[in-house]
Each structure stands twice: as C-alpha cells, then as structure tokens.
C-alpha cells in the first residue's frame, strides 16, 4: 500500500492544483480517464463542501491518498477549529448529490471535519 499526503491552503484557487495532483497520481496507478475525472470531481466537491460549511480558513486542507491493490482511498480533512453545526443546505445540496453519486463507501465525519471515500479501479493490469 502506498500513501501520499498533500497539505494545501484552504483557498479556492488551490483546487486546480489538487485536481492536477490527483490526476497525476491516479494515472500512474492505472485508472482510466473516466475514473480520473470522477476522482477530481469528488475531491473538488468535498473541498467546496468544507469551504461552504466551515467558517474558518486559516488552517489548510490535509488530503491523504491510500493506494491499495485495486482501489484508491482518499481522506480529506479540514484542519480548522470547531465542528460543523449547520450544513448550508442551499450551497451544499449539489455538492452532496455529486459526492454520493460518484464515490464508493463515503464517510462524513462532521465532528472532525473529515470526509473519506473510495474508488475502485477496474482497469488495473
């Protein structure tokens, strides 16, 4: 199992860097283009969820990738203080719908501001 960690400012302009890193990692690990697209979308929506629902932005996002035999597990943690009390329904409905539709086994931990998901890799040689 391999493990990659990215700690990056909680700012919207860094989401494109997160997407590029994710697509580089998933292409060396045998994902096809459709799956890579899904991974980029899921990860971006998780970050948007935190940007819209956690008030503070001083501390960064911590993103961990766990590369396993035939799946990729990704954990996104918003390192800012305080737990999420109200989810902004208006802004987050679409986020959640997209994450739910594209991710396998996703787990939302509002207390620790951590969202985890998996994506199976079908194409691996």
């Amino acid at each position, binding site marked *: 199992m391999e493990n990659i960690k990215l700690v990056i400012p909680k700012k919207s302009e860094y*989401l494109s860097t997160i997407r590029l890193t994710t697509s580089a990692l998933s292409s060396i690990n045998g994902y096809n283009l459709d799956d890579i697209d899904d991974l980029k979308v899921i990860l971006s929506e998780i970050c948007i969820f935190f940007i819209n629902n956690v008030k503070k932005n001083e501390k960064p996002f911590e993103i961990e990738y766990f590369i396993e035999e035939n799946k990729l597990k990704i954990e996104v943690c918003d390192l800012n203080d305080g737990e999420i009390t109200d989810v902004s329904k208006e802004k987050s409905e679409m986020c959640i719908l997209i994450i739910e539709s594209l991710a396998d086994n996703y787990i939302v931990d509002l207390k620790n501001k951590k969202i985890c998901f998996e994506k199976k890799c079908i194409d691996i040689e």
Partner: protein
Amino acid sequence: MSLDIKYSKTSDNNYLEIKPIGEVDISTSPEFKNKVIELIEKEKIDISINADELEYIDSTGLGVLMGILMKVKEHGLSIQIINLKPNIYKLFDITGLNKVFNIK
C-alpha cells in the same frame, strides 16, 4: 488552466452565444456569473451557452448556471446549452439539471 469567456451573436442574430473556455469552478464562477448577467442585461436576447471548450464545472458553476437561468426567465428570455462534453453532461444528469435546462 483557468477561464476565458468569448461571446458573439449567432449568424441568424437569434442568440448571443457565450463560450466559456476552460474551467467554471469555485474560483472562476463569480467572474463567469458577472460577465453573463452583464451581457443579458445589456443585450436582452436569448442565450446559447456553447460548452465545447468547457473542460470542467463544479457545483458552484452549476449553481451559477441556475442563477443565470433565473435572470434569463426574469427578462422573459430563454437559455440553451449546446455541445456539453460527456463528463460534464454527467454532472447535469446527477444533479437533475439536465431536466431544468434546454440541452442540445
């Protein structure tokens, strides 16, 4: 890659065609929204979003499209979206926006 916005009237003069080139995401969608709303207010003409060079959209961008739809309706105008790439259409499908927008 970020966002570039081009626009021109279609040859039949029936539509203002707006072409987002690149990514309409949380960092670029406010700019996209402002530009399109400004164009609608100014031109008062039906809108056609040509998405053939739209490489990425996120929920923020989809939200902005809904805001644009409301603005268009407010003026009694219409909006269509053309040439969506399959990976982007997928998001319209997931969120049900494929039923809200006229997609060609």
